[in-house]
């Protein structure tokens, strides 16, 4: 079977959706030449009225997409940096997100915001290394964070077809992941449905985005000690509480690994929700970024504020023991 990288899966999904539906247009910076790789080849195929290079006016083009969406198009925005979501927070959280309810359901805003390369980019320092998916889970904008090429394909397709705004995080740490895939098997993956990435019976690790791969490696490494289930929610919001509940009901133990800042991150939300509903066999644990983290530039420091394999091993072992 051919290999497909995560980045190529995004490119393929976008191309397939543009072919499928004329109303899909893409807005972003340097997408014509395809600097980020997501739009490679699409300008030649679909022209500059559907692959539209944008000036550095992120706020305006975000609301421009909202207007276009309410007029019937399905815009996809590519943002070059995760923190551009801070810059456009008003336009996403206060405009796009609110139109449906505020108008009593008169309109819908089917816009997808894609951030290829979220989280640390290794050496891009404080303003280019954020991983702010939990912010969108808080305000309630649908948010996906696929870990694999197949899910990247499937969730981008679903995001574009969804009638609500969806933020799509493609973590830097996953962009180069390549999987053997039958291309014919690529298909939409429903928003809000997680998957058990590895079955186990003793402890559930919930891992998000690129950290799913870390969790799988840890589960394998500790296979002699315990049977670890890895749950990949794939969607951060709306979260697949039923899927997670089934896993935790089986294992009774929980560790979360999450590249969010600790306070008010999805990691904490997962723990809170689980303990409200389940009596666990041991107190749960989280491996996250520190509170309020700003990624320092130097590589050693950048790495030191991201969740690690070793931290996950330690947390899993501690929870197994208690």
């Amino acid at each position, binding site marked *: 079977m051919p290999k497909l990288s995560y980045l190529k899966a995004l490119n393929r999904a976008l191309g397939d959706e543009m072919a499928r539906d004329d109303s899909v*247009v893409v807005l972003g910076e340097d997408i014509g030449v395809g600097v980020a790789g997501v739009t490679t080849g699409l300008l030649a195929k679909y022209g500059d*009225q559907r692959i539209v290079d944008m*000036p550095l*006016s992120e*706020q*305006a*083009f*975000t*609301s*421009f*997409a*909202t*207007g*276009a*969406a*309410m*007029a*019937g*198009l399905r*815009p996809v925005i590519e943002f070059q940096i995760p923190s551009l979501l801070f810059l456009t927070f*008003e*336009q996403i959280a*206060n*405009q796009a997100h609110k*139109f*449906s*309810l*505020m*108008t*009593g*359901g*008169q*309109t*819908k*805003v*089917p816009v997808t915001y894609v951030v290829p390369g979220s989280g640390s980019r290794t050496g891009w320092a404080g303003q280019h290394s954020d991983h702010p998916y939990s912010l969108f889970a808080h305000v*309630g904008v*649908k948010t996906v964070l696929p870990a694999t090429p197949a899910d990247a394909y499937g969730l981008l397709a679903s995001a574009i077809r*969804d*009638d*609500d705004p969806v933020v799509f995080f493609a973590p830097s740490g996953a962009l180069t992941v390549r999987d053997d895939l039958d291309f014919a098997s690529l298909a939409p993956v429903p928003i*809000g449905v997680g998957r058990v990435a590895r079955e186990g019976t003793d402890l559930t690790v919930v891992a998000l985005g690129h950290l799913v791969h870390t969790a799988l490696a840890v589960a394998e490494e500790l296979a002699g000690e315990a049977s670890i289930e890895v749950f990949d929610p794939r969607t951060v919001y*709306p979260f697949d*509480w039923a899927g997670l509940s089934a896993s935790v009901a089986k294992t009774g133990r929980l560790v979360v690994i999450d590249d969010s800042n600790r306070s008010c991150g999805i990691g904490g939300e997962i723990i809170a929700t689980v303990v*409200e*509903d389940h009596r666990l066999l041991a107190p749960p644990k989280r491996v996250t970024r520190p509170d309020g983290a700003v990624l320092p530039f130097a590589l050693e420091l950048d790495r030191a504020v991201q969740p690690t394999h070793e931290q996950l091993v330690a947390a899993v072992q501690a929870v197994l023991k208690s």
Partner: protein
Amino acid sequence: MDSAELYRTVRLIRRFEERAIELVRSGEIVGGIHPYIGQEAIAAGVCGALRRDDIITSTHRGHGHVLAKGADPVRMMAELAGRVTGLNKGRGGSMHAADFSLGIFGANGIVGAGGAIAAGAAWARRAQRTADAETGDVVAVNFFGDGAVSQGVLLEAFNLAGLWKIPVIFVCENNGYATTMPVEAGVAGSITGRAEAFGIPATTVDGQDPECVQAVSEAAVIRARSGGGPSLIECMTYRFDAHHTFEHKARLNYRSEDELAAGRSRDPLDIQGARVPSDARSRIDAEIEELLAEAVRFAVTSPKPDPADALDHLYATGLRVRTGVNN
């Protein structure tokens, strides 16, 4: 629109606002309103130049625009009163009233927010136009105040509109103040200059005279429909009443009595009224009184929403999320 129709629109907005203020006072409208009184000529004149399928985006002071674009005053009043029969089923209220079937893409609570939305909507309509359409492009109008021209996202929207010659018209209602800030204190340079800097032609017009506003708007609409690109119209006007009805109870003292009297002396109702024969005028006035009596009656007697439906429409897909309590 002919003179009588323009008068009718001005009168409708004026009386609508006056009746709405009564309902604010009586507690039927919660949260207050930003009255449009004194600025009616702008909404009337601009919307008088538009087609039904044209689009508008409006502001916190949006009742006039919404009514002039054709929204039903009865369902509009019900919206202000928070009833399920309202335009937005009581979910939006004064600052978010919308009627998408008439191209009314909503009032907006955030100053400057409507410009990029209007530009995007107009751009989308142009993209959707079938080759055989001979009616010209759909035009979008974005209304905003003098305060909004200092808001970054609006200036960014000027850039997009200027670059791609989008059929959008920026209508600035310069009523001299952003809440209590005089325009001179808030705007370096000029309002028209800000549009021109982005290659957008701009004119200043008497915003108290509906026919002046309509004439200038018609020219801008023709230009926009035929691919000539965006324009900005600065309408000089005056807000006769409070920034928001909360000001009725607070003495803010940022406008002198003299200034108020001078500002109120050029009333669009009188200016346009003088152009309509008095019998026609009386007939229109009577019709409007009747319509608004019905609007008020309908508003206060319509059912209030059921709290159980509070999260209806939160997602267009109908997605249901967790409530605020453990179940």
